[in-house]
């Protein structure tokens, strides 16, 4: 409105007109900028809300994942146990070892396996303990007898207790002992020598296991320890930790 009035003196003062145009330009820019800003502010408001919702969703997902992890860690215990039983991983006894199989099993005559025997004693044990045969050839499904001998060369009675080991480890699950001399205290009087038999068999399913296809030699190793009077040792089935600490 004032512009035409302002324009007239521009004819007379060019400097004033320049300043004027500058002012007008600035005003125009300013008003444009203000409009833009107002539009922008309106957008920012909704965008903020959007971000807010997005943040909440992400937070909810993260929280759910965290709770899921905690739940999974609780569920893993029985699941792992089931998995171990199914696959036999980690050395757990494969379900299905049946003592009644001895009556009905038939020997697999094609598969000849060599069983080698090893005898060890603990450092402080003074018995002379050795196998009476270095090796024996058996077939799966046939019961076999083997002998160890132990002699007490000292002048006082010594009580020993033994444990065994089977190498290769995977074959250990097929190596079944019907009767032996392990895990029970055996007392030898001074200068006494006894025969210790081991009556065992290899499960016929050994022949069907693909992992055992290359296994031709199984080593049975017995180790004798001295048992202290009054010390109670439990069978490995009940408390395997005591046996493990003994053998390690």
């Amino acid at each position: 409105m004032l512009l035409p009035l302002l324009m007239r003196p521009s004819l007379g003062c060019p400097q004033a007109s320049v300043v004027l145009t500058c002012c007008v330009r600035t005003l125009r820019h300013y008003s444009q900028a203000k409009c833009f800003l107002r539009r922008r502010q309106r957008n920012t408001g909704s965008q903020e809300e959007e971000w807010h919702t997005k943040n909440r969703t992400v937070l909810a997902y993260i929280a759910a994942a965290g709770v899921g992890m905690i739940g999974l860690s609780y569920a893993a215990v029985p699941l792992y146990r089931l998995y171990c039983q199914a696959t036999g991983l980690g050395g757990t006894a494969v379900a299905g070892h049946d003592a009644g199989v001895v009556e009905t099993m038939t020997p697999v005559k094609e598969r000849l396996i060599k069983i080698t025997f090893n005898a060890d004693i603990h450092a402080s044990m003074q018995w002379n303990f050795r196998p009476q045969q270095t090796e024996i050839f058996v077939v799966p499904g046939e019961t076999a007898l083997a002998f160890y001998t132990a002699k007490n060369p000292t002048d006082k009675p010594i009580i020993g207790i033994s444990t065994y080991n089977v190498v290769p480890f995977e074959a250990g699950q097929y190596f079944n002992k019907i009767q032996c001399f392990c895990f029970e205290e055996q007392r030898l009087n001074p200068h006494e020598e006894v025969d210790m038999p081991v009556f065992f068999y290899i499960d016929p399913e050994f022949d069907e296991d693909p992992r055992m296809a290359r296994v031709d030699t199984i080593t049975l190793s017995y180790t004798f320890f001295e048992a202290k009077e009054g010390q109670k040792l439990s069978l490995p089935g009940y408390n395997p930790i005591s046996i493990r600490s003994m053998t390690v």
Partner: protein
Amino acid sequence: MSTSMNFSTKSFRPRPPDKGAFPLDHLGECKAFKEVFMKCLRDNSFDNSKCRLQSKDYLECRMDHQLMAREPLDKLGFKELMDRPPSQAEKESKP
């Protein structure tokens, strides 16, 4: 020996024997049968299948002298020896 702290490597777990432990033969009552069995093994290059009769005799000696719980032989895996003992004894006595 066999630590069980590894997940993937197989470890060995000793199992108790099915019928328990043999009582010790302090008086050497079955030593003779054991000697016969060991001689049979040495003669047959340690082949267990050829010395089944001797191992059966040893276990029967143990059962007779209260060194082993009495069990029917087929439960100990000697089913084939029970079915035809006369022919088996003939085969053994021939050579």
